[in-house]
């Protein structure tokens, strides 16, 4: 793989310290991409905005943005006002707190970026060492392409990584939900479940999982491109286990006999 191109340049700032960095996406898109087509003539479709009352297409340039209040009023904002409200462009990746590792729960993580040195490799190396010694991760804010991001600045394989975080409003607050309830769980079933799980425990080895389906899809496309037809069969869904105890006992036996 050839070295990746930096997607952005910034400066990590905390207190008086400034560390110039380059951002590289740590994610590579490997999905099979589809376009939406008009079924009849296979022309790729575009999206338009339509007035639902008249069914007329409204050109993008003539549209405004509207904020709807709960009582049904609509507040209009024009493109110029929105442009004025855009965040100030800045190169700063400002760290406003350093938290113990683990304080940022994985529910918040959105997208990882590698940070490489931009110029002076010394400051970069010193920041890596300082994060290592303190065992902390930084809570960052920065503005990239007209959008403000929050992120976690942390170490990954002795290198700097910045993982963008989701805005507070986007994450469903699990604390506000009640788990399914019912009578006390059976002790014997619980202990069987623990034993079965123990037998299936292992180290997390991500290289062990492959997207085999992606390959099948590509194969299907290749076959169809040659004009072959493809049969389709529905996939049934298994029924829930009625006798939990028996299912657990049998699973445990099967697992143990595998060694």
């Amino acid at each position, binding site marked *: 793989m050839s070295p990746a191109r930096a997607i952005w340049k910034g400066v990590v700032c905390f207190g008086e310290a400034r560390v110039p960095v380059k951002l590289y996406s740590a994610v590579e898109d490997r999905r099979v991409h589809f376009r939406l*087509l*008009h079924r009849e003539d296979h022309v790729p479709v575009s999206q338009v905005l339509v007035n639902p009352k008249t069914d007329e297409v409204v050109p993008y340039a003539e549209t405004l943005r*509207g*904020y709807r209040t709960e009582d049904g*009023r609509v507040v209009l904002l024009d493109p110029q006002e929105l442009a004025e409200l855009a965040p100030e462009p800045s190169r700063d990746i400002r760290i406003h707190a350093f938290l113990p590792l683990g304080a940022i729960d994985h*529910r918040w993580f959105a997208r990882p970026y590698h940070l490489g040195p931009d110029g002076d490799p010394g400051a970069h190396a010193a920041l890596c060492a300082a994060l290592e010694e303190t065992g902390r991760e930084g809570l960052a804010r920065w503005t990239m392409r007209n959008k403000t991001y929050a992120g976690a600045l942390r170490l990954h394989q002795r290198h700097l990584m910045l993982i963008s975080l989701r805005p507070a409003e986007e994450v469903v607050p699990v604390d506000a939900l009640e788990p399914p309830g019912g009578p006390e769980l059976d002790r014997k079933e619980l202990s069987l479940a623990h034993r079965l799980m123990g037998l299936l425990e*292992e180290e997390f080895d991500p290289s062990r999982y492959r997207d085999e389906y992606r390959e099948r899809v590509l194969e*299907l496309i290749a076959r169809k491109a040659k004009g072959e037809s493809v049969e389709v069969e529905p996939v049934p869904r298994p029924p829930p*286990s009625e006798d939990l105890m028996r299912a657990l006992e049998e699973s445990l036996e099967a697992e143990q006999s595998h060694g």
Partner: protein
Amino acid sequence: MAEDEEESYVPQPFWSGTIAFGLVSLPVDLYVAHRGRALTLHRVDEDGTQLRRRYFCPRDEEILSKDEIVRGHPVAEDRHVVVEDEELEGIAPKKSREIDLRRFVAVSDIDPMYFERAYLLTPGEGGVKPYRLLARTMEEEGLAGVATFVMRGNEYLVAILSEKGILRAEVLRFADELRSPADVGLPEPAEPDRDEVRRFTKEIRGLQEDELDREDLIDPDDRRLMDPIREKLRTGKDVVEPASRREPEEGEAEVIDLMEVLKKRLGRESRDEGGRDLQAWTREELYDRARALEIPGRSRMTKAELIDSIEKATGS
């Protein structure tokens, strides 16, 4: 700020299937654990009418309905291979309606860069007891079940984990979707200057906090946008009053918050489809349900056929 979605209605599960733990089978529904943004700006015309997004064929210059659209993979300039949803589901591995938990790993072993997005799991009919058993056991062990499964034409790597008795499916990135520092071409960190490390460490200690404050993750862009909106509401400038009390438009059922649906689904002992009869659902809702169940041929079904096949698929 977020672009608005199509019409909103009762949130439907994203996927319905079965979790297998040994020979224990547990029917579940997956709901997205991430909501839209707090502040939504709609695309409107100058009268404040909310515009709808529609697909459009540029050659025929006509607006298309969902039924008139098909997925195509580009194979050459101006040439696509058409692939139906049903074909993608048809080549899925046999057990595609199942997440088979054959491996359990310590939750703390999974690097944060793997986490892509989350779904909350609610138990399906007859699934409450195995749901509670699995949730409790995983939480006590600090383990997550890791498996791959196919949903809507993509294979997903998921970690099923439990927090406070609620099961969650965290979609993980595959290893080959992630770049290492070496892939990106980063040099090994140089030997740091000790004085600089001390200086940085001191700055870090000065900014130390113990906990993440949810407030710190509130989007400042949204917050800033609210100022002019409040000002306009106060003065009445650029505010469109509703012509009358707004009646829900056809196909636009009452909006029920995702949290309400989750509370109901986690709370009930048996499946009741949110307390609503399938007959009362809109075609859009039925279609989404059929999609969650991956019912073949759904795009060409009538409302009655959709109801019939949903009932068959869920055994109700």
